[in-house]
């Protein structure tokens, strides 16, 4: 009997070890953990006290794996400090997709930081994102510049007036002596119909009143957009989806910035 038990335990361990055995497409035990925290640690070391921070902004890698591989090759030729993968990392929010994306993105020679998109919330995507990348609202400060990552996927929460979390955003933008300038990074721009439009004014007002923000980075629309829609000098830059084979490379120095489009 005990021999049988040993055999059963052995079989279960073997089966568990074989990655072909999937319990459900929505299983959440993703292979990679806390990637944003690890990336931020690397960024802090590499940027250190450089005058200029060089950021690559992309989004909507969903189901464009071949194109994403080409992006990684192209980005590795640039002298950038890190990449923002600004939402819709996946198409269906399943664990396999999250892992496929990271298996490609880990070939980058520089770190990347992921932001949650509406597609990433499908199925159990929210839980997988939290395990794999960390909190949906997050921030980090390098060289006295604060980058604020924000969940703006209001439609996914039935426009419950809580997404984006405005009070958290205001708190992050409140002056303290850790940063001089800030950039907000989120998937859906506030002028899009998938943004909770009851919070559009509050979002814009939070950025304006802080007097710290010159740039708001987005994706979601699948086409490039450069706009200053609220006549307040705050520029909203929307990256294309990966099938458009374009990314933005943004140089930030003090309260100044410049950007260019790169096609690959």
């Amino acid at each position, binding site marked *: 009997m005990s021999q049988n038990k040993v055999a059963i335990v052995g079989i279960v361990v073997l*089966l568990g070890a*074989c990655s*072909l*055995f*999937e*319990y*459900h*497409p*929505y*299983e*959440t*035990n993703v292979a990679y953990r806390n990637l944003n925290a690890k990336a931020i640690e690397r960024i802090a070391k590499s940027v250190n006290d450089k005058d200029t921070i060089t950021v690559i902004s992309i989004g909507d890698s969903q*189901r*464009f*794996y*071949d194109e*994403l*591989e080409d992006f990684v090759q192209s980005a590795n030729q640039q002298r950038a400090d890190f990449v923002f993968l600004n939402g819709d990392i996946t*198409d*269906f929010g*399943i664990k*396999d*997709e999250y892992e*496929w994306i990271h298996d*490609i993105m880990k070939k980058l020679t520089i770190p990347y930081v992921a932001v949650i998109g509406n597609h990433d919330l*499908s*199925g*159990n995507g929210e*839980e997988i994102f939290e395990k794999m990348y960390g909190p949906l609202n997050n921030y980090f400060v390098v060289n006295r510049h604060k980058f604020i990552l924000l969940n703006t996927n209001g*439609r996914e929460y*039935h*426009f419950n007036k809580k997404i984006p979390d405005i009070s958290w955003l205001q708190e992050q933008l409140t002056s303290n002596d850790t940063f001089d300038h800030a950039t907000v990074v989120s998937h859906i721009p506030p002028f899009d119909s998938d943004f909770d439009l009851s919070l559009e004014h509050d979002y814009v007002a939070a950025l304006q009143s802080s007097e710290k923000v010159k740039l708001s980075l987005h994706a979601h629309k699948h086409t490039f957009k450069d706009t200053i829609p609220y006549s307040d000098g705050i520029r909203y830059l929307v990256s294309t989806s990966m099938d458009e084979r374009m990314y933005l490379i943004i140089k930030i120095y003090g309260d100044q910035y410049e950007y260019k489009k790169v096609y690959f």
Partner: protein
Amino acid sequence: MKRLIVVLGMLCCITFNSVSQSLNRRWYMPDFLTAQYAGSIGFISGGAGYEIFRKKAGVELLVGVVPGFIDSAPLETINLKFTGSIINVKINEAVTLTPLTAGLFFCYTPGIEYSSDLPSWYPEGYYWWSEAVRVNIFIGGHVSAMTDRFGRSRKVQAYYEIGTNEIKLVSYIQNSDALTVWNILHAGIGVRYFFSDIHR
């Protein structure tokens, strides 16, 4: 959902008892019971089914669970599976090998967080797939043997299957450079216990 699993479990017990104890098999009584490990429908799943097309195929209803100790997001599924035998090799009087089967199943995952239709606050066609329903195709194989272990002559079967679902398949088709077929495949294994004692 838990109630559903209990009801199905009771049904299986009743079926098992009535079928094994009486010779008057009712028409609706299933031909076999199934237990499965993995296969994208649960950590474990169980159910019952019928042999169809002169026992060349089977159709079965399976309830699967991913319990909380396996994954922090517990799941339940209800599945309708069709499996057809393509090649059969009779090894001896007691054992038949079926090296190739093919089939498909529909996996329904209940829960308010998994919508089967697009909820009303989305524009029409916003997402083209259903969160709750997956369509899977697979190939596999099984080996069947007659045994007297259960007090009378019974057929038992061990099977495996390997396949994919529609959302992984569409990901692979569009990305044949970045993804390999092994990226999208998933596998399951299981056993079936047949009430019939006639070995084909």
